[in-house]
């Protein structure tokens, strides 16, 4: 919304106030003035007279002007086509600062000195586009400030909060705010006119309760012509294009009172106005010559039979005012906010009028605005005004008296406000109120639809008293411990472990494409899909983080980053039957070098490296000796020979492996774990166990197995075949030849209660050797 401060001055005197300072005051009181437009600093800007303008030697369009600025004459180079001797112009001298930020300096233009600039209205910020320099009236006094010869108006660009759109989308409403901030009186505009000797003899009928208030009034013999200068200027400054006096007056009223008016050509309408809900598939051709199809949710004004206007949204072509119009039927009405909003959204016809209907209209202005229109039409369009108006009023009036006490105000604002302060503020706001002791009974004004409860009054008092007077303090409350809820703590601990293991945390988008969603949906989860996405890349809510991390990898690879260790912990979502489910997942991706050296060889990331990370993580979480990996060949986007499910307590919690070479030809490894699934298994508590006091004995053995032997299975068997003194078995050497696979095992023996003797150990060890040889038909190797 743009507010012309010149216009505001009609209702509350502000011509003596600095418009920038006023804007700050209003902003600090709660209505945001985003920008002040048209403020000119007239320092070093004077009226000048061109006394000589001759062509520039080195240019075919520039002129070298001798300009009289009172005290002396200056030579100024100017490119405007209308620069000529004898005219009075606006001269910016070196040091002047124009509203567009340009600073005037002495310069040399194509070899000729130029000591300033002759300004156009555009350069002064008073016009969008100028053709040449601005010519001042002939009686302008040379050397003086050009201020009084220009149509100056400081325009406020408002950035309104939704609660203040009902009152500050019009000049009178904004004037009330200004009057409260400055503590000044307000004067409402003239609404008088001469009644002519004819009647508004239309038959008005309202058949829907979605019309709250409807006035119709007939005016005759309008003369359609250009609007007076001040109306054109004010409309322009407020952001509307002047058209003709009749259209402009209707817009002027809307910007003045916030009450949209609709003008029908009375001769096209006939004798009846019937307002009702549209019929299904009822058609109307609107002013923009489009055919619109309506339904029973749309309010229409009809001539008794066919629609002539979509209420609050747009008029019909069949009843519009044109250059031949003589007689006008004025509508000033209030329609249901939601209905107008839905219709305008549905038809994609959002206008200044529909916007105002949506935020609510002050019913006290509906008739006033109508009368004001008659006043202006009489004055500027020579209209004759009927002596009555037709009205249907469906508003159930009930005054809302809000009770609030001084104690309540002080309790919420947290600062001592006196009784007299509150009364002063209520007066400034022009609210109707009664005081009994420290209790105030405030009538919610109809021009402030946002005021309805006690807290609203408290806010009004607080904002005008000034929040800067609040002295900050910490709440004095009972002590209590803060902290993280367990699920967040769990996530944070895991996150910090992953970082300490060298993985970078990523933060990627929850919304992904259908394609990615389908490619990586290894759990066959039902996707949650947006009803109205904004792009094809972001239609599905991810059920896992894999594609997001691959995207990050691709992005970085494209920037020649070869070592990538990344992870993300994120909630993912899916549908199960009719339920929306959440799952907290950890996904990690690794590729390249583990260590970085400029000149030495370092190990590369492989399956076993990432497997080590997974085990480290799970052991950190207290799942030592409860972890299993089982080969999984079923995940389509993974290398089927290098992929395994991860199990804790025999329950699957995720997978690990190498990404399928068709997706990533480089060695890229990934794992994903459902942390919510994992945390269902309780991790062990930390408990002290004393290290064994007795020495351990190591025994090594090596076999040639058949080629497809699985080391883990042999290890499991060794444990089974051994007695309790076997503490640990590891594979310390693997050699694959074309005929067989040789594995070397190291067995650690130890007892908790005694020193083992060699005999005992050898007995067990030899037993294992013979059983393994037998079971696997494997040959013991002797080195």
């Amino acid at each position, binding site marked *: 919304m743009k507010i012309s401060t010149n216009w505001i001055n009609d209702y509350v005197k502000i011509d003596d106030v600095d418009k920038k300072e006023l804007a700050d005051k209003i902003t*600090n*009181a709660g209505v945001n003035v985003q920008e002040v437009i048209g403020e000119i600093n007239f320092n070093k800007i004077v009226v000048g007279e061109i006394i000589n303008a001759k062509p520039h030697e080195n240019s075919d369009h520039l002129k070298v002007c001798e300009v009289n600025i009172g005290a002396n004459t200056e030579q100024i180079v100017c490119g405007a086509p209308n620069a000529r001797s004898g005219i009075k112009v606006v001269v910016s001298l070196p040091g002047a600062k124009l509203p567009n930020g340009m600073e005037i300096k002495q310069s040399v233009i194509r070899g000729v000195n130029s000591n300033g600039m002759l300004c156009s209205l555009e350069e002064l910020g008073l016009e969008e586009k100028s053709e040449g320099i601005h010519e001042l009236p002939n009686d302008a006094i040379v050397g003086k400030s050009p201020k009084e010869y220009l149509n100056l108006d400081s325009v406020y660009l408002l950035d309104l*909060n*939704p*609660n203040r759109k009902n009152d500050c989308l019009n000049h009178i409403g904004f004037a009330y705010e200004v009057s409260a901030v400055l503590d000044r009186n307000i004067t409402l505009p003239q609404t008088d006119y001469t009644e002519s000797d004819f009647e508004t003899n239309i038959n008005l009928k309202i058949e829907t309760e979605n019309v709250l208030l409807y006035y119709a009034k007939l005016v005759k013999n309008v003369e359609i012509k250009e609007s007076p200068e001040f109306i054109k200027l004010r409309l322009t400054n407020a952001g509307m294009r002047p058209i003709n006096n009749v259209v402009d007056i209707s817009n002027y009223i809307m910007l003045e009172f916030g009450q949209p008016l609709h003008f029908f050509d009375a001769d096209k309408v006939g004798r009846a106005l019937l307002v009702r809900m549209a019929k299904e598939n009822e058609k109307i051709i609107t002013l923009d010559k489009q055919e619109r199809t309506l339904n029973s949710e749309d309010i229409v004004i009809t001539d008794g039979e066919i629609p002539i206007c979509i209420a609050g949204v747009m008029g019909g072509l069949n009843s519009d005012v044109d250059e031949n119009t003589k007689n006008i039927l004025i509508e000033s009405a209030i329609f249901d*906010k939601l209905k107008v*909003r839905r219709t305008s959204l549905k038809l994609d016809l959002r206008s200044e009028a529909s916007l105002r209907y*949506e935020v609510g209209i002050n019913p006290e202005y509906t008739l006033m605005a109508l009368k004001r229109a008659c006043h202006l039409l009489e004055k500027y369009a020579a209209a004759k005004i009927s002596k009555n108006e037709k009205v249907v009023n469906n508003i159930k009036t009930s005054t809302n008296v809000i009770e609030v006490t001084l104690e309540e105000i002080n*309790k*919420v*604002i*947290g*600062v001592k406000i006196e009784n007299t302060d509150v009364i002063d503020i209520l007066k400034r706001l022009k609210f109707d109120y009664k005081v009994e002791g420290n209790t105030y009974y405030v009538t919610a004004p109809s021009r402030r639809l946002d005021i309805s*409860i*006690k*807290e609203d009054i*408290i*806010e009004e008092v607080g904002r005008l008293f000034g929040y800067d007077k*609040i002295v*900050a*303090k*910490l*709440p004095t409350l009972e002590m209590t411990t803060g902290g*993280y*809820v367990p*699920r*967040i703590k769990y996530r944070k601990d895991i996150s910090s472990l992953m*970082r*300490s293991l060298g*993985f*970078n*945390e990523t*933060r*990627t*988008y*929850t*919304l992904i494409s259908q394609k990615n969603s389908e490619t990586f949906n290894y759990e066959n989860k039902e996707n*949650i*899909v947006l*009803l*109205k*996405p*904004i*792009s094809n890349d972001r239609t599905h809510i991810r059920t896992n983080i894999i594609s997001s991390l691959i995207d990050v990898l691709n992005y*970085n690879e494209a920037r020649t*980053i070869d*070592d*990538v*260790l*990344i*992870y993300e912990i994120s*909630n993912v*979502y899916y549908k199960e039957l009719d339920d929306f489910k*959440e799952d907290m997942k950890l996904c990690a991706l690794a590729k390249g070098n583990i*260590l*970085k*050296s*400029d*000149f*030495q060889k370092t190990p590369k990331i492989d399956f076993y490296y990432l497997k080590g990370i997974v085990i480290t993580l799970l052991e950190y979480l207290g799942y030592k000796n409860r972890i299993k990996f089982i080969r999984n060949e079923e995940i389509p986007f993974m290398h089927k020979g290098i992929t395994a499910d991860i199990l804790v307590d025999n329950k699957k919690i995720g997978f690990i492996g190498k990404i399928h070479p068709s997706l990533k030809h480089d060695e890229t490894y990934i794992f994903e774990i459902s942390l919510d699934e994992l945390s269902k298994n309780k991790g062990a508590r930390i408990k002290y166990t004393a290290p064994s006091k007795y020495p351990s004995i190591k025994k090594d053995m090596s076999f040639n197995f058949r080629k497809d032997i699985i080391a883990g299975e042999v290890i499991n068997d060794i444990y089974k075949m051994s007695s309790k003194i076997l503490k640990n078995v590891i594979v310390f050497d693997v050699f694959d030849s074309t005929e067989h696979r040789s594995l070397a095992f190291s067995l650690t023996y130890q007892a908790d209660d005694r020193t083992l003797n060699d005999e005992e150990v050898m007995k067990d060890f030899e037993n294992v050797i013979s059983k393994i040889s037998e079971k696997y038909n494997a040959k013991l190797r002797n080195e």
Partner: protein
Amino acid sequence: MKEKIEAAKKEFESLKINTLEELENIRISYLGKKGIITEFLSSLKNVSKEEVKELGKIINEFKNEVSNKLENLKKELKEQKLNAKLESEKIDISLNGTFRNIGSANPIEKVIEELEEVFISLGFTVVEGPEVECDLYNFEMLNLPIGHPARDEQDTFYITDTMLLRSQTSPVQVRTMLANTEKSPIRVVCPGKTYRRDNDDASHSHQFTQMEGLLVDENISLADLKGTMDLVVRRLFGNVESRFRPSFYPFTEPSVELDISCFKCGGKGCELCKNTGWITVAGAGMVHPNVLTGCGYDVKKYNGFAFGFGIDRLTMLKYGIGDIRVLYTNDLRVNDFNRRDN
């Protein structure tokens, strides 16, 4: 015999020993079983008692001299050998080190954790809520009924008529109050992901991050809110001034916006603060009675404040990031977030 000993002494003193091997040979030839000195000693049995005393003394002195000298020389030679070895092992220490990556946090996470630290120290619990949320909690119970114009400002991703991707973290307020069956005081903050139908550009992101806060207790005022907010912004931005500006949120009344004095220009006006000297960092206010009542709280007894920080914006301000997309691109070349901030 005396002369023999003197001669042997002279010979020993003139010896040149260069290596440990030579030294060992000489040791044997003097002090070994058949060594010169051993032989002198054994020849003492052939001399008279008077001479034994005198010669014995001379031989022992000679023996001590030899063993001391050889012992010292051995040490010296050993050291020389070690030094030579160390010299030969010398490396070029100017070559670069070998590195292991310290994983870095996303900048958003760093800012969230700084805020959490302040709030936890004030007795707040950090909670969370689902991102797939129902309209009831995201809007309706926050005093935003269907058709409320403020819903327009939050163009929301709907999933069904009643389910959506939350457009704010505020529904966690509702969830927290509803979950509190005793209807007792509350102090929570909730950082989390939020979504709106914005096209991504330098200053808009369809996914962003908020941190919601809610305090419900008795006799809470805007002064308490201001004090709490001051602690937070000073933690993030140092010694800045702050101010409240009246604002509007459907779920708070009165509502305010929290501005801080521009930490870049000190309030004089610059590009960062758009020449106003102030930067808006949070929205806040006193919890609207409709919200409290809707969640079962007795507004005669309890009131409270709520606030919301735009974490992305705070992160950008704090670290001087000009484009919000940077926070979600995860460019690994950006790597200053794995270290202590000073």
